């Protein structure tokens, strides 16, 4: 009996061990790269490329790279000293500088997967064409961000399936060519009007291409003679055919950035977010870098200033990373009556929302807690605290000569979010990437450099005229304001005066919109100096980084630890950063 039992066991054992697939792995909960070859896989790769934009637009790394350290914004109480002041070692080691590089290549690889498999996946031809066009648009957008920030860089145009530790810096001129080709091809197959909010459109592609040509036009090695003409063509194409693309400037500048209005006729492209907790990457622990924290960065710590004012959802969460420079407030936004944009861009009044804790008797909910009149002399007003510009954070007090330490200054309103679930949450608003008003300014810059100052001036005045509209005053008053604004526009015949004026106009229209550093780095004065270096060292009131910025800072350093150290061949660093 025992023998039989023993024999049975041996048989069982040998039959198990003879299963040839005993050692085969069958991953039942993992997706492998094979999935990307199916139609749903191709779309998922495209959505992943879209999703990666959330890292840049609305994130802190992009803030540090595009808003901080410019003539518009300087370090706020919690800002990074080293990034705002262009300290080399800070730029070399601060992870925020290398983030865009790291994310960008992941996004580009996903876009390349779409291009690789879309047509062979089995999906209908029109869907494949659309998918490929969107992927090309997104790839071009990412490469444009990367080439402006880092210069020469590895140009991956194919989906990567084999690992390699080699990488080579392709010259920026070739990168620009690839970007231009991608966008031109994308324009053919993208729809005029987005089928869903946030999808790429031909209009967005034209706009981006115009920007690319403007940046390329001043690039030492990438420039070509017809760049300005091309920029002019693509931007005016949108302006002349605005109706076909569903584009129109809004009547009131204040409506452009109002919460819940991110898909108006003026908006060309957004990086989407919504209130659905499953899809909006709102959890800071799961993926904090994809949070839209733009509503935090520009806000001073209002609730710490005076009793009776506490943090709430409408007033926002104050991370005070950056504050407007004195130059922006005093010079760029000097005109505050005719030009309504100052008051529509900045919050300067905070109202009491915590009446039980007010210390001054007689103040109730809704009374003014803080007022920033915006000038040293102001009419009397009833408010708990009033702060003059010399009392803004980091300004020198007129009475004591010491630097102010209180976190108070005008707060950028463009990213305010009333729909966040709780006070501590990041924003659920889509982030506006491109606006139609910028198309006019692009056209103006291109026209100016084509020696057509009249047309340039015309385009600028369209933007300025809109800025003169104030819903609270009469039509006659508006008309007068508009006429004053448009008549004081300079002639734009001289390039130096013109480019400085256009940059100022861009600030008035687009400040804080994650593009200033790029605009300063790409523009030049007539002696060939970058406006980044020229303006930051010569403007008055002084910009804080005027003594530390160098000419080579028009490029960011290539990441040391995630790229150079891991590449087995020689991978040179950008000039000036030590190597």
């Amino acid at each position: 009996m025992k023998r039989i039992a023993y024999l049975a066991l041996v048989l069982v054992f040998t039959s198990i061990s003879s299963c040839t697939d005993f050692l085969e792995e069958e991953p039942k909960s993992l997706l492998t790269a094979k999935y990307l070859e199916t139609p749903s896989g191709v779309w998922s790769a495209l959505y992943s490329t879209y999703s990666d934009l959330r890292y840049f637009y609305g994130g802190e790394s992009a803030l540090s790279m595009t808003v901080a350290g410019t003539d518009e914004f300087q370090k706020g109480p919690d800002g990074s000293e080293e990034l705002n002041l262009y300290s080399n070692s800070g730029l070399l080691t601060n992870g925020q500088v290398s983030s865009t590089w790291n994310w960008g290549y992941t996004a580009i690889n996903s876009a390349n997967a779409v291009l690789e498999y879309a047509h062979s996946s089995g999906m209908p031809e029109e869907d494949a064409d659309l998918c490929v066009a969107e992927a090309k648009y997104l790839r071009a957008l990412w490469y444009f961000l990367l080439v402006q920030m880092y210069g020469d860089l590895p140009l991956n145009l194919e989906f990567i399936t084999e690992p390699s530790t080699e990488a080579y810096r392709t010259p920026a001129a070739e990168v620009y060519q690839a970007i231009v080709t991608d966008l031109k091809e994308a324009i053919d197959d993208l729809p005029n009007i987005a089928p869903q909010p946030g999808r790429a459109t031909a209009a967005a592609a034209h706009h981006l291409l115009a920007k690319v040509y403007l940046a390329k036009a001043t690039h030492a090695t990438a420039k070509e003679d017809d760049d300005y003409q091309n920029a002019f063509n693509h931007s005016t194409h949108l302006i002349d055919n605005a109706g076909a693309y569903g584009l129109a400037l809004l009547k009131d500048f204040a409506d452009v950035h109002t919460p819940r209005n991110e898909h108006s006729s003026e908006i060309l492209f957004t990086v989407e977010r919504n209130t659905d907790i499953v899809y909006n990457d709102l959890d800071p622990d799961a993926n904090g870098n994809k949070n839209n924290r733009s509503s935090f960065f520009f806000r001073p710590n209002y609730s710490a200033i005076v009793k009776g004012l506490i943090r709430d959802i409408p007033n926002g969460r104050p991370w005070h990373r950056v504050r407007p420079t004195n130059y922006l407030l005093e010079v760029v936004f000097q005109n505050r009556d005719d030009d309504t944009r100052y008051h529509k861009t900045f919050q300067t009044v905070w109202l009491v929302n915590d009446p039980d804790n007010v210390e001054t008797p007689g103040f109730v909910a809704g009374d003014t807690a803080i007022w920033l009149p915006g000038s040293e002399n102001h009419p009397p007003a009833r408010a708990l605290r009033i702060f003059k510009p010399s009392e803004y954070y980091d300004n020198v007090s007129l009475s004591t000569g010491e630097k102010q330490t209180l976190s108070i200054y005008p707060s950028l309103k463009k990213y305010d979010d009333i729909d966040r679930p709780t006070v501590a949450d990041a924003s659920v608003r889509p982030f506006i990437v491109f606006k139609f008003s910028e198309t006019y300014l692009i056209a103006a810059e291109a026209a100016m450099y084509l020696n057509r100052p009249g047309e340039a001036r015309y385009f600028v005045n369209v933007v300025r005229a809109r800025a003169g509209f104030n819903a609270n005053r009469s039509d006659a008053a508006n008309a007068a304001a508009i006429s004053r604004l448009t008549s004081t526009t300079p002639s734009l015949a001289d390039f130096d005066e013109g480019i400085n004026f256009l940059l100022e106009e861009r600030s008035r229209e687009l400040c804080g919109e994650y593009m200033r550093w790029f605009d300063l780095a790409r523009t030049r004065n007539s002696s060939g100096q970058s406006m980044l270096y020229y303006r930051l060292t010569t403007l008055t009131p002084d910009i804080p980084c005027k003594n530390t910025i160098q000419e080579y800072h028009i490029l960011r350093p290539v990441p040391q630890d995630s790229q150079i150290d891991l590449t087995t061949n020689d991978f040179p660093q950008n000039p000036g950063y030590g190597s």
Partner: protein
Amino acid sequence: MLYGEVTIIEGLKNRVNLGLDISDDKYNNFYGSNTPFRDGKLNSAQIKNSDNFSYTLENLLTYDKEFGMHRLNVTAMGSIQESTTISSRMDASNVPVNYLQYYNFSRAEDVFAPENDNNYTAWALASVMARVNYVYDDRYMLTVTGRADGSSRLAAGNKWHSYPALAVGWNIMNESFLRDVSAISNLKLRLGYGQTSNTAINPYSTLGGLSGSFYNFGDAGVRGYYVSSLPNFDLSWEFTNTINAGLDFGFLKGRITGSVDAYMQGTNNILLQKELPASQGVPGAYYENVGKTENRGLELILNGVVISPSSKDGFAWELNTNLFLNREKIVELQDPSITRDVGNGWFVGYPSSAIYDYVKLGIWQLDEADEAALYGAKPGDIKLEDFAGGGVNGDEPDGVITADDRRVLGSAQPDFQGGFTSTFRYKGFDLSVVTYFRVGGMIVSALHMPTDYVNRLAGRHNGIKVDYWTPDNPTNDMPQPNATIDASRTHVLGYFDGTFFKIRSINLGYDLNSKHLAFLGGNSSLRIFTSISDPFIFFSPYVKAGGVDPEPNAVNHETISGGEGVPQRALKIKLDTPPTRRIVLGVNFKF
């Protein structure tokens, strides 16, 4: 564990072992809105299950035979092992009433399944082995083994690896010329050669994988997938060849015993994760057989009865000591022409835990202000050594501190380690002291690096007590606190010599004489004891510099923030709890 054993013919046995392991793990939680975990945000709940079923089935055939002075033992084995784990997890947010906790997810506003903890993992191992053991006259021994293993985790075509082992022993004690030497009680020589192997990677690592992301277009949510790890279709076993020689000895009728062992190992095809450059677009690390390392070492054990008890309860003192050292180095990386992989911290000729960073000469002093200015520094900043200009082998200081000025500073490998245990007995008392020491090696104290938060040196913040430079205190230890402190160059502040001598524990106990307990019946015993663990640390440069304990407490793969220069395998001390000092008082009572 079940087994069945059958004797087939005399000397030949067959045994089948079956081991089963079944476990079921549940973890549920609920965090209310006003708890520190949620900090005012919406409440959250989680339910998580994990089931595991594993089994091992071994089939052994053994044959024992003795004839004359020969003794033979043959073993053959075949075994399989399999483990399957299924996990699932759901997260919910905004539960309407706190008492619902996690009991009814249908009532929560938002329910979703996170990327982590929803998976199926299965792996399998299969082995066959045969071993012959032959002893002649209890003096000469020979063992020959052959083994083959297969693992599901490796790439197809590389799943099986076979390897031999050979050992010989000479029991010199039993030789005729030593039989009458009473001074020597044991002497045995051992020599061996063998190979072992390791499949230590996670299942499915060779297949590559996708990770998910989210997006929306207006109100429509969509899911994206991107490649987060690349497949490796060549991944195979990591195996180690070892040669070792040893001598066991005993003198004075076993009063002194001990052994000496020396070994040399070469490990090939090491399975390590490799980071790819960011421009590859694949963010995860990539498994590869990356090269060869070599280990050589020596181990000494010496035990002795220093004082033999003169009577049954007399005073006795026993001492056990051991000493060991190991020298490791990377011999080759996967591509023989590459001698250094800076990003992963691998340098040919150095241990795999080599630390590569700037060399700190001290702190710039007031009288060196001009020289400091050349490097963009000022008195109070860290003074780093400037070796090279442009390229690894540049030999002229170039006046700029760049990434090429980094050098291999040391590694986690100690010069030698060891310890001793000393036991005293007298009447019913026993006292033992267990010690351990390490000499050499470099530890990485993340606490001292300004990239962690307790030694920020960025202003008047609370921090650990360190000797920092001020114009009145011209130390060469820590730099002057400065808000613009250059974080990348400050890792050098956290490297310390890892030498120490620790008393691991002191134990004192008393056994009550069983005579006194006779009234409770036979077999009764009572023991009272007290012990203290980790009471003292001596001779530690790290403790002298303000550290708590020089033994590492960070998990092996945890990186240090801004982790340039610190390899995975370094000994790291972070903010985790250090080894604790405990005092135990207890009674063992049996009746």
